[in-house]
């Protein structure tokens, strides 16, 4: 079960050294790392994230944020896409190597409203937190829609029973041919509670669908971060606010926001 972090006290974060348990490729340019607690077990909720120190500081300079994709008594995991110097280091990690992690950070996904059906939509690197959320919500029979350009970009994951997965590929090489939005058109979303993480245009489309259907929608945003703990104001995202410009911190009030509370037209 997941706890609603919204409007609640945050459990304090910790910084520890963990040993890599496994590092496997799960799609082209995409891997999943599992790390042992090494005596410092915590209980992150889906949507929360950790940051990893760069091994060759100061190149790159900043810790890199990753959302938890799993956490249990044996350790925790996340899914990463290789993009630049930080994630390139991740691909080099071998079991037994050590890494400096800091977590849990941020505010995760709230539990669904009673009688609503969780519909989870993931694109790209959004798959990690969506996987973890699906596992946590498996008793609710969630539907997961995951999209990628082509079949070998779709992460290979072991979904638990109770989770219905609808993979989509733009080129039709696996699952439904089309985007996640095409797949959603074919789906009954009248009682949906939307949860989404992925590219901004995808999340905006889901947000608009939720508005149309008058259903709740939770988005997990990605913003460049420096401190990750709410101190630097660097990760600001524009809030929907008629009275003037206000910002929320992606690392503290977010990364998960009620989609109606964000400004989408910047």
């Amino acid at each position, binding site marked *: 079960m997941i706890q609603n972090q919204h409007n609640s006290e945050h459990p304090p974060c910790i910084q520890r050294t963990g040993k890599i348990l496994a590092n496997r490729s799960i799609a082209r340019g995409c891997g999943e790392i599992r790390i042992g607690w090494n005596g410092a077990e915590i209980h992150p909720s889906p949507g929360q994230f950790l940051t990893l120190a760069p091994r060759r500081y100061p190149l790159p300079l900043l810790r890199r944020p990753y959302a938890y994709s799993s956490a249990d008594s044996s350790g925790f995991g996340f899914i990463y896409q290789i993009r630049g110097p930080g994630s390139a280091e991740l691909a080099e990690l071998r079991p037994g190597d050590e890494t400096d992690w800091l977590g849990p950070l941020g505010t995760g996904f709230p539990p669904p409203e009673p009688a609503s059906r969780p519909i989870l939509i993931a694109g790209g690197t959004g798959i990690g937190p969506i996987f973890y959320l699906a596992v946590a919500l498996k008793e609710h029979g969630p539907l997961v829609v995951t999209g990628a350009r082509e079949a070998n970009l779709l992460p290979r994951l072991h979904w638990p029973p109770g989770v219905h997965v609808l993979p989509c590929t733009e080129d039709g090489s696996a699952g439904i041919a089309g985007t996640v939005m095409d797949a959603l058109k074919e789906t009954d979303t009248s009682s949906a509670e939307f949860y989404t993480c992925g590219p901004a245009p995808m999340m905006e489309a889901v947000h608009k669908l939720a508005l149309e259907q008058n259903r709740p929608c939770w988005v997990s945003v990605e913003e460049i971060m420096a*401190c990750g*703990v709410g101190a630097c104001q660097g990760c*600001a995202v524009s809030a929907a606010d008629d009275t003037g410009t206000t910002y929320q911190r992606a690392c503290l009030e977010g990364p998960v926001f009620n989609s109606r509370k964000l400004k989408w037209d910047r």
Partner: protein
Amino acid sequence: MGQIDLTVTIAGKTLPNPVGTASGTFGFGEEYSPLIDINALGAIYTKALTPEERPGNTPPRLAETTAGLINSIGLANPGLNKFLTEKVPILQNITAPIIVNVAGATQSDYIKVCEAMEECAPVWGVELNVSCPNVDHGGMSFGTSPPLLARLVAAVRKVIKKPLIVKLSPNVADISEPARAAEDAGADALSCINTLTAMKVDIHRRKPLIPRGTGGLSGPAILPIGVAAVWRSAKAVKIPVIGVGGISRPEDALEYLLAGACAVQTGTTLFTHPNTPLRVLSGIEQYMEQQGFQSISELHGFF
């Protein structure tokens, strides 16, 4: 270790040790408390405080560069009222000295905040931010014009007896001029340096990564610029100079101290390694012990 005197004196008041956290990188003190023993710090320099609440600049506000970070936070802060009602109760439980970084668009902005800080018990002293490159009205014009700076510092001096530190901009031809102007107008100490004007371009979108265009550069890349600024300032004035810019290791802090700084601040590096200030502090202690120094002030004057 007991032998070594790590205290730093500014205007007759002491800081327990020479390593503080730089303004804007450590919030108002509490955010990092789960991660480091904040009461072991020599000082906590808060995020800039202005009379009115400021939302800050349009995101994105950060861009990484080679061994550096560009920020364009834009003095985002809760404003004087919320500071007094929401932050001060938290600051009361912190025993490390709290130095409030003060910013404003006009002289009266600075005076308003400094008056309030003089009355605010948990505040040890103030640091005037006359060097923020990230807003149109952030005091940068004070920092780059010695006559304007002198007038501002003299006016603020009238309303505050607590230690008054003036934070200088590196975006000048000769930092000894504003340094002398601030000293003559009554500053108790200087801090050098604030960030340098910098830009990163997204060559795919063909736009600066930061909407304002330029932001302020910090991090290891600027260390040698900060050390030079401290050396020149310390040669120009008699008041203490606090070194800031690019410190990530004890050796970096020692460069500042040997170049004439009485104390240091660590900023950007603590984002990556929150324990940086305390690791730097213990490295300074170790060096002093090995080299036979008894107090921080003995580290100056070799060149």
